[in-house]
């Protein structure tokens, strides 16, 4: 071991992809490569070992995701295990349909779930069901109402693609009336398809920059998750969103702060890289690494390092001069599988310092 390579990275967030199956068929699902195949489930003994591994790694935030994690029969038990182990923030990312059964919501709350993160495409039924490709809206709305009625933290994810972009502002007003705590709006990013990255259902990045401008005028519960170059947002709304702590940005892959484990127990760069593994965590059904061994592998493994190197790049000459690159990294790398960065990256925010933006983010998370 070369000590100079042994830079310890603080892994703050872990995702467990408990399954690939889902009862929706959303057009811009980032796991659309799995939609046409038989659904897979993570073996329970592997999921249990993973939760214990996350606890031992002192991960702050554990996120159960899929697929549709509420279809995983032992999800409540896994949440309870993570809670008892001391993980502070527990989230389930769901289409919310199963939350239409109030008892299920109560079971998850009793198990220790902090954050119900519910994906919905629109406040308008016909738009949501058109994008979901199944009649799902009524159950999802019922689920949201149940979580809100139980007084629990409820955050909505609205992913914006070509099919809902023009109605998003009106839709957000309807969703706010449900009484949710937060609505995170992000762009549909290109994703892995059968033949590499596809942008078939992705939103043009420029369209999202324009939408962010309109969102700046809405209720402060609506936040923009900008997984794109920050310079796509015009200056005035950008400053306003920052000052109101309503702007998320960046990619954890280049930092190594996020640990995403696929349904087969293999580590992937992030959830959008389904079936593109970097490290296999298991051998013969048992974890291969102690926490310390894994931290070393995470800092030194050649595949992991090459993935970070491939993400930590300037996609344009302009980025060399931009201090904000250290925050946005030109956004999600998947974007550039379908779009040309030279068509989007611009010099509009070159005089803004990352530190000036960060002071608001820091205040938000460390009040």
């Amino acid at each position, binding site marked *: 071991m070369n000590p100079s390579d042994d830079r310890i990275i603080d892994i*703050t*967030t872990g995702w467990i992809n408990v399954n690939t199956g889902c009862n929706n068929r959303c057009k811009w699902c*980032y796991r659309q490569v799995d939609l046409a195949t038989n659904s897979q489930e993570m073996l329970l003994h592997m999921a249990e070992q993973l939760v214990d591994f996350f606890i031992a790694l002192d991960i*702050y*935030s554990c*996120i159960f995701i899929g697929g549709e994690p509420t279809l995983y029969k032992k999800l409540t038990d896994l949440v309870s295990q993570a809670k008892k182990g001391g993980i*502070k*923030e527990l*989230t389930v*990312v769901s289409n919310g349909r199963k939350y239409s059964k109030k008892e299920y919501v109560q079971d998850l709350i009793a198990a220790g779930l902090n954050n119900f*993160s519910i994906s919905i495409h629109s406040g308008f039924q016909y738009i949501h069901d058109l994008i979901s490709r199944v009649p799902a809206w009524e159950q999802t709305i019922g689920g949201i109402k149940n979580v809100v009625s139980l007084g629990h933290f409820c955050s909505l*994810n609205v*992913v914006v693609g070509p099919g809902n972009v023009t109605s998003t502002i009106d839709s957000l007003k309807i969703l706010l009336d449900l009484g949710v705590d937060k609505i*995170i709006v*992000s762009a549909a*990013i290109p994703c892995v398809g059968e033949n*590499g*990255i596809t942008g078939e259902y992705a939103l043009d990045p420029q369209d999202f920059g324009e939408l962010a401008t309109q969102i700046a005028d809405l209720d402060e519960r609506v936040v923009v*998750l900008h*997984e794109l170059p920050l310079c796509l947002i015009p200056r005035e709304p950008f400053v306003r969103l920052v000052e109101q702590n309503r702007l*998320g940005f*960046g990619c954890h892959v*280049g*930092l190594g*702060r*996020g640990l995403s484990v696929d349904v087969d127990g293999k580590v992937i*760069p*992030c*959830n*959008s*890289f389904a*079936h*593109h*593994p970097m490290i296999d965590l298991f051998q013969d059904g048992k974890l291969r690494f102690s926490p310390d061994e894994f931290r070393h592998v995470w800092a030194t493994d050649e*595949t992991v390092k090459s*993935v*970070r*190197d*491939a993400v*930590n*790049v*300037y*996609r*344009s000459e302009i*980025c*060399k001069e931009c201090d904000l690159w*250290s*925050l946005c*990294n030109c956004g999600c*790398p998947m974007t*550039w*599988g379908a779009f040309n960065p*030279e068509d989007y990256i611009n010099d509009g925010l070159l005089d803004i310092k*990352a530190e000036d933006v*960060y002071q608001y*983010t*820091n205040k*938000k*998370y*460390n009040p």
Partner: protein
Amino acid sequence: MKDVRTLLASLNGKKIAAKREPDQKFEARNSSPLCQCQCRR
């Protein structure tokens, strides 16, 4: 099962190696990264 490095090599853009890494000080310990998966994705 596909090769992640091949996938990343297929991305557009100049891919100029950054002389710095994203600054970890900009990620507070208790800030769960937002993505669509917490989605924050």
